[in-house]
């Protein structure tokens, strides 16, 4: 449906996910893992709320004058010997990357973690053109071996359990080894991947990374990582390609600092990630290492059209992953159920903008609007508000079911007639309370069997809130 990648529909995929034992085991670790670490990091840092304000301010200022910052970025980058390419669509971006690689005879491309490459379906495209892509981030490497896609924006293989990784490594690494690697602990597996990927970094003719942000005043790209693979990817090969979307630019390094103060804390619960690297242009005449060419591909893919709409605030996103780590829906079904590149709350807010409301219409509905995502989002993106915006769009385009539209129409009509509304709800509460019997719960309820299929429906108290309130005064 979109660039050759069919989007799996949420309702069916989520049911499958709930029955997948490996996935459920992996997701159970979210509480003591990502969530607990973020909570600790925020508690350690008393200025966290101020830091959030500063980061939001940096990004808001950027978006107000995005074209100017992009032009400045381009000018500074080129002054330093870099080359900037502009791509409107995923197909344009893929073509630009392919031409850069083929015109220089590149056979092997090493890759740091980049969600934008997923967004444009880069790996499959390059492989079709006989370019070998080597994922070097451990999580990306694991899912490349498994021939899967990421299920989380910062922990792509979070859905895999250790025994599954052991099995993958056994399948892929053992044929060339007389003696298999020891595989008793996570540390063993990390060491194994390190040993296997070491040479690959040096074999690659080109390295491709994403960018956590771009800096207009210096023409630089910045990556924030923990493994060190991104740095090897952008240092060792002779060609470095940066793939970034247009909203990633910030005006100054100081604005970058504001984002750094909230990024790692929100993402992994570190005060600072292990490596924050600012790259500017190719190697200088006196340098003895570094790529001899530095290219930045700036992709729009629908971002520019979001500005000025109620969904524009998603452009502040710094892809920290906090919203999905804390989302009860993501925690129950994992990332693949969302069917496309960006899972969780940010996916539900962004995917309709990138793929269209029709293709992604289930995602904004895959939320109870509990608001936990907005609470933890370092960039204060009002995610639930954006879900409601997409739901309204879905309704306008008549994409939801006839039943849902009828129910909403009835509800709308009732809400506009307060007396009838009170009468109707009052009567319903009274009847439901009387019919409930001794157990005070319903095992089966017409019109609510979506609920009663998996749990009992508690009987109402017999009065509506308004009834009680009126009696009280």
């Amino acid at each position, binding site marked *: 449906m979109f660039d050759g990648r069919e989007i799996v529909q949420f309702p069916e995929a989520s049911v499958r996910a709930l029955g997948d034992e490996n996935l459920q085991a992996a997701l159970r670790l979210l509480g003591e893992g990502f969530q607990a670490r973020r909570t600790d990091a925020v508690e350690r840092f008393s200025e966290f709320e101020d830091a959030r304000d500063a980061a939001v301010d940096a990004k808001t200022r950027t978006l107000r004058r995005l074209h100017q910052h992009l032009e400045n970025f381009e000018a500074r980058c080129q002054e330093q010997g870099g080359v900037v390419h502009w791509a409107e669509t995923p197909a344009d971006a893929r073509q630009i990357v392919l031409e850069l690689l083929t015109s220089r005879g590149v056979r092997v491309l090493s890759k740091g973690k980049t969600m934008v490459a997923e967004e444009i379906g880069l790996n499959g495209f390059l492989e079709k053109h006989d370019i070998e892509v080597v994922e070097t981030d451990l999580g990306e490497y694991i899912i490349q071996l498994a021939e899967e896609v990421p299920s989380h924006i910062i922990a792509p293989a979070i859905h895999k359990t250790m025994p599954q990784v052991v099995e993958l490594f056994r399948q892929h690494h053992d044929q060339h080894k007389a003696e298999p690697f020891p595989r008793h602990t996570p540390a063993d597996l990390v060491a194994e991947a390190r040993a296997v990927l070491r040479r690959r970094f040096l074999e690659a003719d080109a390295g491709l990374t994403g960018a956590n942000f771009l800096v207009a005043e210096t023409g630089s790209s910045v990556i924030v990582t923990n493994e060190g693979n991104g740095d090897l990817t952008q240092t060792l090969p002779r060609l470095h390609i940066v793939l970034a979307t247009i909203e990633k630019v910030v005006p100054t390094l100081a604005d970058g600092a504001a984002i750094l103060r909230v990024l790692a804390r929100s993402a992994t619960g570190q005060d*600072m990630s292990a490596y924050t690297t600012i790259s500017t242009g190719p190697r200088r005449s006196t340098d003895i290492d570094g790529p001899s060419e530095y290219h930045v591909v700036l992709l729009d893919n629908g971002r520019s059209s979001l500005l000025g709409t109620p969904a524009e605030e998603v452009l502040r996103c710094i892809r920290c992953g906090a919203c999905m780590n804390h989302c009860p829906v993501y925690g129950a079904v994992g990332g693949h159920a969302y069917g496309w590149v960006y899972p969780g709350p940010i996916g539900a807010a962004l995917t309709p903008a990138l793929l269209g409301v029709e293709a992604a219409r289930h995602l904004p509905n895959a939320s109870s609007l509990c608001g936990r995502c907005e609470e933890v989002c370092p960039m204060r993106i009002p995610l639930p508000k954006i879900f409601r915006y997409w739901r309204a769009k879905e309704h306008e385009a008549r994409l939801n079911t006839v039943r849902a539209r009828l129910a909403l129409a009835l509800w709308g009509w009732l809400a506009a007639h307060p007396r009838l509304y009170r009468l109707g709800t009052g009567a319903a509460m009274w009847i439901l309370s009387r019919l409930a019997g001794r157990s005070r719960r319903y095992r089966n309820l017409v019109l609510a069997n979506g609920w009663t299929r998996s749990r009992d429906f508690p009987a109402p108290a017999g009065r509506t809130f308004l009834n009680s309130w009126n009696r009280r005064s």
Partner: protein
Amino acid sequence: MSAARERILGRLRDRLGEGSQESPHPSAAASARAGDVGVFCRRLEAAGATVERIPEDAVPQAVAQYLTQRNLAARVRVSPALAKLGWDAEPLLETAFGIADLDDAAAVVPANLGVAETGSLVHVSAGDNPTTNHFLPDHAIAVVAEDAVCADLEAAFSAASVSAMPRTVCLITGPSRTGDIEQRIELGAHGPRSLHVLVTRK
């Protein structure tokens, strides 16, 4: 100029209005405020590094001792910027200068600055300070002068880019790590498994 460029910028201009250029405060205006060395060392340790405070001329000796303690071979790659630290004082320590390769288990690298706020080392690439040496070897031993410790990220960024932006400015905060297997933190993913920092005084 490409047509895609014109169309993207055109759409942005339509939506945002031409408006006046907002002149951002250039980062270079931030003052290079000095940072607290004690705080810097504590944060480094919190990030998983080990720290030693020593006189500047004791670096070769400290390196030799560290390798012995860790049961590593007495052989290091030394970034050319540190070639003049008096390595002859340690005749049993084998040193090679230049770019690290896959056979180097340990490297001694300079850090141009420290950042007290985050416990980060700042590596600024240069002809005598190749980036490779900070990432390829298993064990990194970094040397940073205590008077090069800045207060915060802004101060470090402005100090690192005084004349012009070098090719690479890298903030290194602890050893390499990953949480990609069952969310458990393991050190030594692709960069160094250990980071030992020698904070030197004149």
